[in-house]
């Protein structure tokens, strides 16, 4: 359906609301046909960025280009983008078909053709035959799909999605995010996706742009971000890593030997130099062994049984560690002395 995926470019965009600076200076590029996620905690400026792209806010300074064309001063209705809203924003007085046909008719398409295209759009999202229902008569998942169809039938250069899954329950969320990703890969449109949920971002994106305080904290593929976090913020935000201070003892052949309060370990490192550093340790990269004199000592402070794994908090000389242990057969009670070990994968030196 969409045949003209466009690129998105922000050049030194700045946005202030009165005295408050939401975005100090943002430059980014989205390649055509990719799905890029803006990820970050609430208040990080990701939604403002999306709204500036949609034309719902105008930047204080800087330029925005869509498909190579400068759209900085264009109002929303004259931009070749469309948006799926967090609340879906389906018009409650129109049925699904009218909702989907609305944008087509706004751009001057005849009633009959708009209707046919709208029916195709509904079919695309698996809602064929539901056109006569009012939004109130649809389930949340169905409403969400109508919202996607409504945005897609316009064949925009860029599709914008503002936390599209946040009003769905957990199980539905997983299914719908798969559907959105499949649709995007099948139709090869450009999509900019805003979310604060790192699982969602990892699952759907070609690239992720993590934002903090209106700035880009790091951008890259999901694997880049997870495996080589650029800062302790990223390490913590994506995958809840334990950030532990360490000493790099030696570097050779792309491998670094590190020491945490005497616990020695070898991790992959591309550009590390000996000295003080920080280590991102994933909760699942820590093993718990019986305490003995040789092992690195720790003491269980809290344990929570979660069915397929157990979450522990353990106190060590390197600080309190958050640990995910897949062996549910044994449950270590608080107060137990344990020996802490590290796995090979899931540990990275933070490059700050």
């Amino acid at each position, binding site marked *: 359906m969409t045949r003209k995926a466009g690129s998105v470019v922000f050049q030194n965009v700045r946005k202030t609301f009165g005295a408050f600076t939401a975005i100090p200076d943002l430059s980014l590029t989205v390649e055509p046909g990719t799905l890029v996620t803006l990820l970050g905690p609430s208040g990080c400026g990701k939604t403002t960025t999306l709204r500036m792209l949609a*034309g719902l806010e105008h930047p204080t300074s800087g330029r925005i280009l869509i498909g190579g064309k400068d759209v900085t001063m*264009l*109002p929303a209705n004259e931009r070749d983008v469309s*948006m799926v809203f*967090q609340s879906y924003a389906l*018009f409650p007085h129109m049925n699904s078909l009218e909702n989907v046909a609305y944008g087509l008719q706004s751009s001057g398409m005849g009633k009959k053709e708009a209707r046919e295209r709208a029916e195709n759009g509904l079919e695309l999202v698996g809602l064929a035959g539901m056109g006569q229902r009012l939004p*109130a*008569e649809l389930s949340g998942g169905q409403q969400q799909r109508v919202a996607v169809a409504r945005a897609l039938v316009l064949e925009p250069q860029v599709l914008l999605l503002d936390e599209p899954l946040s009003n769905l329950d957990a199980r539905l969320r997983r299914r719908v995010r798969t559907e959105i990703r499949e649709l995007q890969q099948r139709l090869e449109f450009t999509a900019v996706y805003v979310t604060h949920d790192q699982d969602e971002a990892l699952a759907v994106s070609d690239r992720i742009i993590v934002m903090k305080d209106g700035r880009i904290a790091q951008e890259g593929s999901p694997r880049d971000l997870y495996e080589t976090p650029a800062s302790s913020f990223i390490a913590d935000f994506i995958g809840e890593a334990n950030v532990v201070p360490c000493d790099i003892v030696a570097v050779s052949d792309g491998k670094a030997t590190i020491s945490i309060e005497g616990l020695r370990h070898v991790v992959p490192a591309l550009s590390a130099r000996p000295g003080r550093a920080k280590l991102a340790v994933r909760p699942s990269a820590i093993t718990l062994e019986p305490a003995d004199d040789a092992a690195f000592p720790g003491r269980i402070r809290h344990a929570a049984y979660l069915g397929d794994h157990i979450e522990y908090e353990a106190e060590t000389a390197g600080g309190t560690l958050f640990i995910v242990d897949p062996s549910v057969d044994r449950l270590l009670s608080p107060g137990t002395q344990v020996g802490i070990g590290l796995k090979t994968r899931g540990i990275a030196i933070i490059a700050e």
Partner: protein
Amino acid sequence: MDDRNRRLNIVLALAVAAMTVLPWHRIEGGFFSFGWLSDLNSASSAPALLQVILFDRPWLITPFLAVLAATIARTLPDPMRRGRLLAWSGGLGLVYLVIEGLAIGTTGFNWSISEALFGILSDGQPPMGAGAVLAAISFVLIFSFGLAERGVMRGDAFVVSTIAILVFLVTVFVFYPIGSMFVGAFQDVDGSFQMAGFNRTITDASIWSLDCVVGGVRCGVAWRTLFLAVLTAGGSTALGLAFALIATRTRFPFKKGLRLLTVLPIITPPFVIGLALTLLFGRAGVVTQGLSSVFGIEPSRWLYGLTGIWIAQVLSFTPISFLVLIGVVEGVSPSMEEASQTLRAGRWRTFWRVSLPLMKPGLANAFLIGFIESMADFGNPLVLGGSHGVLSTEIFFAVVGSQNDPARAAVLAMVLLCFTLSAFLAQRVWLSGKNFATVSGKGDSGAHIALPRPLSIGLHAVVIPWMVFTVVVYGMILFGGFVKTWGLDNSLTLDHYAKAFSITVQNGSIAWTGVAWNSFWTTMEIALIAAPLTAAVGLATAYVIVRQKFAGRNLFEFALMMSFAIPGTVIGISYIMAFNLPPLEMTGTALILVACFVFRNMPVGVRGGVAAMSQLDKSLDEASMTLGANSFRTIRKVILPLLRPAITAALVYSFVRAITSISAVVFLVSARYNMATSYIVGLVENGEYGVAIAYSSMLIVVMIAVIAGFQLLVGERRLRRENRVAGLGTRSVPALAEEKVA
């Protein structure tokens, strides 16, 4: 760019037409008689172009220059420069029109400063007419387009134009008249400025005397009005609270009836209560006569004066107070009271220490509303005041009576305005942020605790007699029209109705021979014209206030809401002072009545619109915009359909208010356009109570019919939607509910 040129072309064409085709000045016989079409090159109905060339009015050349500048701007390629030139040419064109209109009167310059600068003009100019008005609107639009092209309001020309036009209208029809009134207060009969006259009036003993405190006969009218307003506000607030408590916290069997009570003040013309009271307690009233024949109590004139006005006002405004307070009483969350009870407080303690303190801001609000209403009330004091007038009636008599002293009326109006605006400011500044209404999203058990028993008994003892009293009063209104002569001849008759509403068939055509028909049809016509305009202006304003952010928005909203606190008498007197002379002369026309209704009732439309629009998620507008619709299409296709109930309410309300209002209308009616209420007041002044009552009850019946009709229409629509949802089957509904929770 195409779009921008297209809309600019239209407006430029309008401006040119306004100056070359339409008569620039006001046509004596009325624009819509179209007599000017055949008479375009006479001095009275020539367009601006001919005025400049043929009739020696060179000052009208400047608007042409402004249009020329805008036309040049149209050819500029750079959008920012084009926008700047457009904004300047539109803005300066408008400012020039205003200054020129104010400066040059019918006989020459109005101001000595302009006379000194430009010399004495041989001839003046008549008031502005169709051409001038259209030119002014065109300039406002050109100005807005210029701003929009410079990126104001995200470049949305529709929104900028809407805001500009609203500000323009409110300035012309609210602030300009009030300003004229202030100026008028300082003017002598010949129009010259006289501080002495103002000083004499403002310090007049009849306004400010405090004799009654030190044992004299009576206080000044300002103090009397204030005293009455405080008593009325106190009385109606106390009664309103009693009604609200009974309605929400007891097992009172007639709660539906209580709710019906709230409709009464909307449909009752304001003097009708006073009228009914005279039929009961006046010298010839039923009760007075009965007491005198049974107990030998001498009939007296106690009703005529502050006592009578007070009773009438408390009767009139208790329902309003009830309406305000029922929300407050219901707003106190039951869980607060439950918490108090679990902390071992009894019912009394809970009521005094928890429930009542939580209602305090609401009570203060109701008090201030009662205060403003009492101050502004004109009908009841007119009927019952006798020689003990209040400010609003004094203003009226200063203009229409033998005094004919507009400056004094203006000064009195300023005093009245100061009182009501102080109350309004107190309401806005002091009460804002003090609202304890604790309606939260969280589920409460929903049941309020019962009142302490002695309190409950006390409230019933007040409320039930008052309800009976109200029913009797309204009974009098409906019944009174059928009685021959009150007190003297109590036999039943249809004469009054026949006199007012008789219809005869002459020569096969219907002749409306009743005396009331003329004013009745005028009222209907004007109310029907004013209602949609009021709704449109009110809702457009609400849209701008809720949905758009612009510099001065809060000030704009505040000024609008303030116009709610301007008493009708003040509006009336200020309209007379503003629109009786050039540049805008509208007195004696239907237009001035329509304008008065639109801008007096607009705040209510705005409130309704704001409330309704705040419930529409803003993302609906944004979705529509990102789907390629402009803001006009968004309003037409998305917002208006969803606002239908608010629109209906605004329509009904403004229609009904146009029928019942008296205070401003009484200044503005003319022989040709007489309104029902002022006609009835005339009947009362002539002592024709029977016909007056008959006419009043007819009006009430008509309004009940209108409201019921609209209710039926709106109610039916809701029913249909429910049916459709109900027919859907049960599967999707629980699914929806689940997902909402998640």
